[in-house]
């Protein structure tokens, strides 16, 4: 507790690395969890699509419902349904608590 050396001594016993965060799960688990939820999909072009994630596939092709297209913070288009080709996707962000 009251040791003065700045670098803490490494533990000698082989301790397994702790899990990074409390919420566990793989990227796939995240994606399964957000199906049916409101999401924000950002494309590499910087355009955002906000809507309800209907489903997605292994290419990260995405089907969205009630989609709003946002460019520079303003709504530029609305689609009842939208298919987004996966190669354009930068990220998928959950827009509501999981």
């Amino acid at each position: 507790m009251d040791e003065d050396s700045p670098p803490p001594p490494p533990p000698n016993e082989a301790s397994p690395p702790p899990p990074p965060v409390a919420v566990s799960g793989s990227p796939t688990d995240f994606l399964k969890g957000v199906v049916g939820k409101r999401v924000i999909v950002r494309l590499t072009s910087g355009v955002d699509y906000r809507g309800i994630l209907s489903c997605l596939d292994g290419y990260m092709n995405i089907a969205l419902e009630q989609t709003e297209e946002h460019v520079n913070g303003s709504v530029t288009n609305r689609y009842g349904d939208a298919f987004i080709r996966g190669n354009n996707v930068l990220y998928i962000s959950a827009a509501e608590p999981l």
Partner: protein
Amino acid sequence: MDSNASGIQEPFDLIRLSLSERVFVKLRGDREVVGILHAYDGHMNLILSDVEETIMIVDPIEGSPNSEGTVKVAKRKMNMLFVRGDGVILVSPPSRT
């Protein structure tokens, strides 16, 4: 399992349900096309008929700090069109009710 109200299990179902319907397609290079969807494949190569293409041409104003500029819109019509899949950004079917 998939208690999806729309009955869609994979994204391509959205496209399959739009065959013979007029669809909106957003393409790379600030282009959009609207046409009747006749065929597609896993690359999202598309065959469209009765097509109108809209091309947005942005002229940046010189000296303007903002990236805003005058946008010119060009339109052209085509009877039959093959769209290579890698140019596709988004496909929107007609609104289902």
